[in-house]
């Protein structure tokens, strides 16, 4: 140890500037390692879950649905919506307990915080790693839809970025909420039961939002799931939506994701600099 055989390949200035430029990716590497530990179970979920849903809802429930919905078979109608809800559920998993853990349980955010990496880069690293996971999961889902004959156009591949956007529109505000929690007393369970569940039930996943009574339709309008579901239907089977509404869907999802992003950065910064 007294005579170091190794020469550090970076000066201190270049270590600092590497962290300033690429700190997000450095932290994402750690998060990807966490995900890798669960790769097998996540992979199984990614493959088996769409399979179960597509069989149960598309084929099973679909057999009860007489005639077409929105001009297509029930399977084609419901498949893109299930993809969107599945990604929302995945976002619920990644952006809730893992964030609480980083601050309160295994305190994984505090070690990188002592290095040249900045708090907002830690938040960014989590997001980048999760996006990578979500993209893979979406692609698997899309491939299953192709295999079931639920989609057949190249345009339907756009459902992948749409689902990803939905995961962020839902996940980043959740991440911000979780990042400012000083304790976990079951709030996340409440979020799951009373926000995620109703949103997925009343977001026109299994039926068109218009079939709901007017006093329940607002839930869909608030829900990122409904906006993303409609977009996914447009690209998967050509659901007819007026142009202004398509723009509204995209704008709403982007706005939610941005709001969540800004708040999450702020709460990470506050939490790790206090």
């Amino acid at each position, binding site marked *: *140890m*007294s005579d170091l055989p190794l020469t550090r390949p970076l000066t201190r200035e270049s270590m600092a500037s590497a*962290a300033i430029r690429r700190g997000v990716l450095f932290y994402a590497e*750690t998060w990807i390692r966490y995900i890798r530990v669960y790769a097998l179970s996540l992979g199984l979920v990614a493959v088996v879950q769409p399979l179960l849903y597509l069989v149960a809802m598309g084929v099973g429930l679909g057999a009860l649905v007489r005639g077409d919905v929105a001009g297509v078979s029930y399977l084609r109608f419901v498949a893109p919506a299930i993809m969107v809800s599945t990604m929302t559920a995945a976002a619920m998993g990644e952006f809730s307990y893992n964030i609480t853990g980083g601050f309160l349980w295994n305190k*994984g955010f*505090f070690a990188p915080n002592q*290095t*040249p*990496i900045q708090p907002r880069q830690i938040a960014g690293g989590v997001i980048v790693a999760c996006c990578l996971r979500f993209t893979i999961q979406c692609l698997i889902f899309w491939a299953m839809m192709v295999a079931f004959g639920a989609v057949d156009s190249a345009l339907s591949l756009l459902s992948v970025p749409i689902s990803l956007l939905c995961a962020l529109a839902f996940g980043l505000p959740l991440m911000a909420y979780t990042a400012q929690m000083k304790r976990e007393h079951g709030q996340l369970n409440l979020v799951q039961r009373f926000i995620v569940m109703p949103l997925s039930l009343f977001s026109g996943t299994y039926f068109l939002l218009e079939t709901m009574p007017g006093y329940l339709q607002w839930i869909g309008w608030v829900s990122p799931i409904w906006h993303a579901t409609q977009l996914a239907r447009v690209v998967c089977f050509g659901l007819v939506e007026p142009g202004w509404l398509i723009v509204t869907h995209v704008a709403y999802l982007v706005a939610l994701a941005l709001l969540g992003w800004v708040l999450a950065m702020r709460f990470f910064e506050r939490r790790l*600099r206090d």
Partner: protein
Amino acid sequence: MTASPTVIHAADLMKVYGKLRAVDGINFEVREGESFGLLGPNGAGKSTTMRMIGGTLIRDGGTLEVLGLDPDKDGPLIRANLGVVPQQDYLDEELRVAENLTMYGRYFGLPYSYLRPKVAELLEFAKLTDRAKANVEELSGGMKRRLVIARGLINDPRILLLDEPTTGLDPQARHIVWDQLYRLKERGVTLIVTTHFMDEAEQLCERLIVMDNGQIKAEGRPMALIREYSTPEVLELRFGVGRNEELLPQLEGIGERHELLADRLLLYVRDGDAALSEVARRGITPLTSLVRRSSLEDVFLRLTGRSLIE
């Protein structure tokens, strides 16, 4: 010693939480290669000061320069020069032992090709080579602490910040950690150590500040502080519950001063054995007695009227 450049300079450094002045206008300097201590009880403001040095806590007042830079502005560059050994280990239990070092090295932008041999070298230094693939939770407290020190060295820091490096360790594990730190000191790494153990401060620190309630009570070399604020020896007497105070008048005139603690009476004397003979001559028989050299604990007691460990 005086020729070494200043690496840390704090003037009127302040951190306030609501009404609590956690760090209340402190001034100190640390020179390159020095091992510098912050001694004080829990809540004295030591960890707060450490975090301000690393720029992970924004100060509320005063100036602070670390390697000539302002931690609030140049945090990343300062932290590229620092190794941090926090009080809570912050080891990643999702990662294995060696991975904890590798991923930490990545946060400095160090390439995997460099980190592979570097991690092996640091594991060797921490005597953890055979545990490279173990889960962190399988390690003992001492092993974890050695791993955290190794992790803090991944960027070859110029300054190593150690916050309570041996708290919670058994005596044997403490000595292994101390040995690790001596070796770093020999290599010229500047050590900044917070501790509430006087023996740790005496062992590790060439110079220290004694902190209490966010303020500096004294500063100097451990031996000089002991000479200045205490007598060479201390006679400790125990008379049993409640009786220590009762016997105090009969001990009048022995030693320069005394301290009455919950469980014992301390007499500050030049010659402990002579004082003990005088106690016996007066016909006073304590339950137990002990003659020892003065320590930093006595300095702290003198300065604050309180014990370091409460």
